[in-house]
């Protein structure tokens, strides 16, 4: 299902990607948005561990 339409409360094509804060393996607080700060990014959401 490739989503071009936006569901009521979730982002779609053309919308801002939602950011979120996570902890990396070294214990540092990071933001998902760091990935697209300097160029395009592909984010993949895997089931369990891929």
């Amino acid at each position, binding site marked *: *299902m*490739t*989503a*071009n339409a936006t*569901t009521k*409360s*979730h*982002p*779609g*094509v*053309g*919308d*801002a*990607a*939602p*950011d*979120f804060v*996570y*902890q*990396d*393996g070294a*214990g540092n607080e*990071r933001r*998902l*948005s760091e*990935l*697209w*700060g*300097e*160029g*395009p*990014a*592909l*984010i*993949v*959401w*895997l*089931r*369990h*561990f*891929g």
Partner: protein
Amino acid sequence: MESLTQLREKLPEFEKLNVRLGCTVQGTAAEAAEVCGQYGMAEKCIPDPEKESYAKMGLDRTTLGAMVFASDELKARRKENRAAGFSVSVKKSFMPHCDIFLLPGAALVERGGKILWLHRGAHPGDLPSADELLDRLRENLRDSLSR
């Protein structure tokens, strides 16, 4: 781990496109470091034990029935994966922070944060292959650059 393996093999192609890759996984930082590290992908994995980003992206959960009584599409994807030498680890599927019903997804985000392309999985096997993802990137980045 077919997805992580495929993505790792294609990392040079993502780099050629100047696209940064992030693989969101359901475990804690320690689980992600351990499991993703086995596949040489620790630096690419983003731990999300609370599934916060999954929820924000609107990724659905499937049902037990849909997994047991798999659709033809899901059966075909499983067959493709097995033929390629990949299989899903049942053990890893039941790790403490894993929700086996949560569906996969992918998004191409341009610099600054606008979503250029988005895929929400309709069934458990519905994550494009690494080659398919690269095709979508090439199409969408070309379109983006031509505007």
